[in-house]
């Protein structure tokens, strides 16, 4: 077991909240969270639905290991059809909210329709009701959490909500919980906003108790915790430096996309790195980094808690930002920094705080600003249009554009549509550094061939978290592969994609995979849920989930042509570093990838593949 066995179905149009039993056949076949939520979503909506219409649905889903002693078992996923991409959107978050929902006795919450007025959902164990959100509509994530804890008279309530960006339907708006953990990508927050749904407040006191074999489960989770503790990445690197441990490493490799992917190395990387965060500042002698923080049940504790320089121009007159808060993580530091050529660590932290406060994805935002700066330098966009001088490297422009975007003002409204739409509007569609409309994260697809293929084939658009081949191609986990080689990469990408789908669906964090592989996950699932969860079975489920997502995208109108990378990465060679001279060979790897996937030449799962996977 380990599933709560119950889902909440909320019809926002009708204002109704109903409990229904979890489909246990689906639960066993898709595990939970990403897999199971996607099974529900794709079974219930038309793939061609307008993502921001009342006909789209949005699901908050936990996994069977969420809320248990499994290390990192606090994750939840928000699943919907994404407005940024038009593809399946599935964003994962940590913090404490997911475990709280599970401890309240729910596996997932499905929202359908659209509320006639702003509402929030309040769940207190078995009881759940929609409540008026007039008092919090227009408020930030931070204000919303504070307000709900106060009015519900329960400081232990956990909140998953949107800020102004989600209300304004910024196409990369995030859903944020516990102040600075986010289901960040693909604009899931905009879908929430489009439904007039402001927040889900949860208090769960019942706990997770129906573990299949409690003693065996405790033994399995303790053994796996030890592995995380003793591994150099999860036991040392991530707790000490956070994901920012990568900044200097990736720059060295020549894979740090810089100035909208014009360059692959950033001369200012060291100024925005983990090492910089741990060095006392010249201004006040204090370190940027205050401490690390874990999410629920996590043994790694990679989270960064930092304190901004109070004298910095961005916050001099804004004491509300002076306290310790989340950031910077590697992807945000890269997207706000290297992608725009900005090496001002404090400015990056300020913008990161805005991203958390009002709920936007720093990757898509930062990458879109990178595009704007390039268009500005090309003379396509002017100061008058943008509202500020916006050359690469301008911290002032970055901070100004962040304020405009989260508040839905001026040129910020255009940035809020993402780089693909903005680039097309101003006549340079090739300059959007994205796949399926979603901006790339912090690794260059020229320097590292596998990750390029992973971006091109990611079901939710450009993303490192669908198949983090960097582990193999840079860090040598589980085995080292040559970053510039294409041989073997289709197989590598597939293996990472399928395994990740299984980890995401279990309710644990993908960062465990630096130390764990499927033989570490399967026994925990078996002890918690069902003896049938062997390594082979869990791997097959991962592949099943990947193909299910793919079929949804195919039905939504995506084709082979969408499994690619922008012209820049295929034709403009990397200028420096270890990858100098490299371009992405994604189009050459694609047929082989389709073949190892068991798809036809157009990227559609064949009948044999569908049958093998039970689709």
């Amino acid at each position, binding site marked *: 077991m380990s599933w709560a066995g119950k889902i909440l179905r909320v019809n926002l149009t009708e204002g109704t909240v109903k409990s229904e039993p979890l489909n246990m056949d689906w639960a066993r076949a898709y595990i939970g969270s990403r897999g199971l939520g996607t099974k529900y979503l794709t079974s219930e909506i038309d793939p061609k639905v307008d993502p921001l219409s009342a006909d789209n649905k949005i699901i908050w889903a936990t996994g069977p290991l969420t*809320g*248990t*002693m499994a*290390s990192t078992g606090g994750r939840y996923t928000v699943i919907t059809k994404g407005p940024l991409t038009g593809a399946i959107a599935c964003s994962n978050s940590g913090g*404490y909210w997911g*475990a709280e929902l599970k*401890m309240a006795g729910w596996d997932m919450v499905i929202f359908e329709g659209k509320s006639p007025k702003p509402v929030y959902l309040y769940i207190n164990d078995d009881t759940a009701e929609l409540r008026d959100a007039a008092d919090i509509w227009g408020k930030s994530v931070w204000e919303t959490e504070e307000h709900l804890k106060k009015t519900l008279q329960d400081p*232990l309530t956990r909140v998953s909500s949107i800020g102004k960006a989600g209300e304004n339907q910024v196409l990369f708006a995030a859903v944020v919980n516990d*102040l600075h953990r986010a289901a960040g990508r693909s604009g899931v927050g905009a879908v929430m906003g489009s439904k007039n749904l402001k927040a889900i407040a949860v*208090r*769960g*006191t*019942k*706990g*997770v*108790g129906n573990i299949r074999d*409690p003693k065996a489960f*405790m033994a399995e989770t303790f053994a796996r*915790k030890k592995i995380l*503790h003793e591994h150099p990445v999860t036991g040392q690197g991530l*707790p000490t430096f956070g994901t920012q441990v990568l900044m200097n490493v990736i720059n060295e490799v020549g894979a740090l996309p810089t100035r909208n992917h014009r360059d692959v190395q950033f001369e200012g990387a060291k100024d925005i790195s983990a090492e910089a965060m741990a060095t006392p500042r010249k201004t006040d002698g204090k370190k940027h980094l*205050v*401490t*690390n*923080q*874990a*999410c*629920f*049940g*996590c*043994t790694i*504790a990679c989270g960064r*808690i930092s*304190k901004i320089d109070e004298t910095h121009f961005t916050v001099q007159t804004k004491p509300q930002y002076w*306290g*310790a*808060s989340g950031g910077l993580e590697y992807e945000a530091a890269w997207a706000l920094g290297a992608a725009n050529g900005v090496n001002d660590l404090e400015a990056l932290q300020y913008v990161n705080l805005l991203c958390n406060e009002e709920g936007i994805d720093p990757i898509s935002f930062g990458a879109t600003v990178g595009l704007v700066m390039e268009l500005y330098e090309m003379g396509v966009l002017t100061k008058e249009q943008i509202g500020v001088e916006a050359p690469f490297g301008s911290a002032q422009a970055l901070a100004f554009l962040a304020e405009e975007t989260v508040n839905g003002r001026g040129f910020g409204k255009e940035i809020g549509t993402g780089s693909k739409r903005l680039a097309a509007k101003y006549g340079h569609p090739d300059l959007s550094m994205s796949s399926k409309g979603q901006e790339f994260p912090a690794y260059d697809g020229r320097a590292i061939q596998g990750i390029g293929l992973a971006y091109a084939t990611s079901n939710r658009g450009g993303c490192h978290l669908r198949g983090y081949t960097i582990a193999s191609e840079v860090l040598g986990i589980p085995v080292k592969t040559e970053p510039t080689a294409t041989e073997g990469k289709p197989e590598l990408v597939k293996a990472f994609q399928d395994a990740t789908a299984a980890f995401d669906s279990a309710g644990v964090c993908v960062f465990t995979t630096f130390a764990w592989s499927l033989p570490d996950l399967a026994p925990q699932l078996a002890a918690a849920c069902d003896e049938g969860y062997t390594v082979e079975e869990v791997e097959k489920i991962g592949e099943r989930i990947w193909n299910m997502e793919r079929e949804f995208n195919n039905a939504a109108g995506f084709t082979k042509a969408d499994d690619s990378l922008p012209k820049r990465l295929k034709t403009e060679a990397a200028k420096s570093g270890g990858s100098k001279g490299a371009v992405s060979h994604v189009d050459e790897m694609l047929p082989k990838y389709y073949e190892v996937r068991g798809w036809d030449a157009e990227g559609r799962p064949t009948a044999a593949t569908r049958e093998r996977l039970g689709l």
Partner: protein
Amino acid sequence: MQKVLHINADKCTGCLQCEMACSYEHYGVYATAKSRIKVFDFHTTGKKVPYTCTQCDEAWCLHACPVEAITVDKGTGAKIVSDATCVGCKVCTIACPFGTINYVAETGKVQKCDLCHDRAEGPACVEACPTAAITYIDANWTGLDRMRQWADKLGNQPSAA
């Protein structure tokens, strides 16, 4: 040797594994809401602080209880609530200066940390803590580590000669 829970908040990451272990040990479920040890997240400073009963020698809760439901476990020195005797009057919750004994509406009794006195491996929270922020050590020498650090700083340096 009497042992006590010793908390070093600087090592706490806020993962709540102690709370899960506590609720699992006492109720057989993972439910942070039922835990007798609580981790407080002081957001603006970044500090996470686990807090629970320190097992006072002259325990206010024990003295205040009108039905003698709270007794001392001889092995561990833990102050134990007898569910069979507790009448749920909550006087102990008023008497305790630290707030570490609390009423549980579902059972009609109070609960507090009992150092997992009947658990062979010792307190479950200690075993679950991944950073040794919570340890179970000699009650008379909780300062030993800190003394060692200072002794190292003051006396364990290369001498000038």
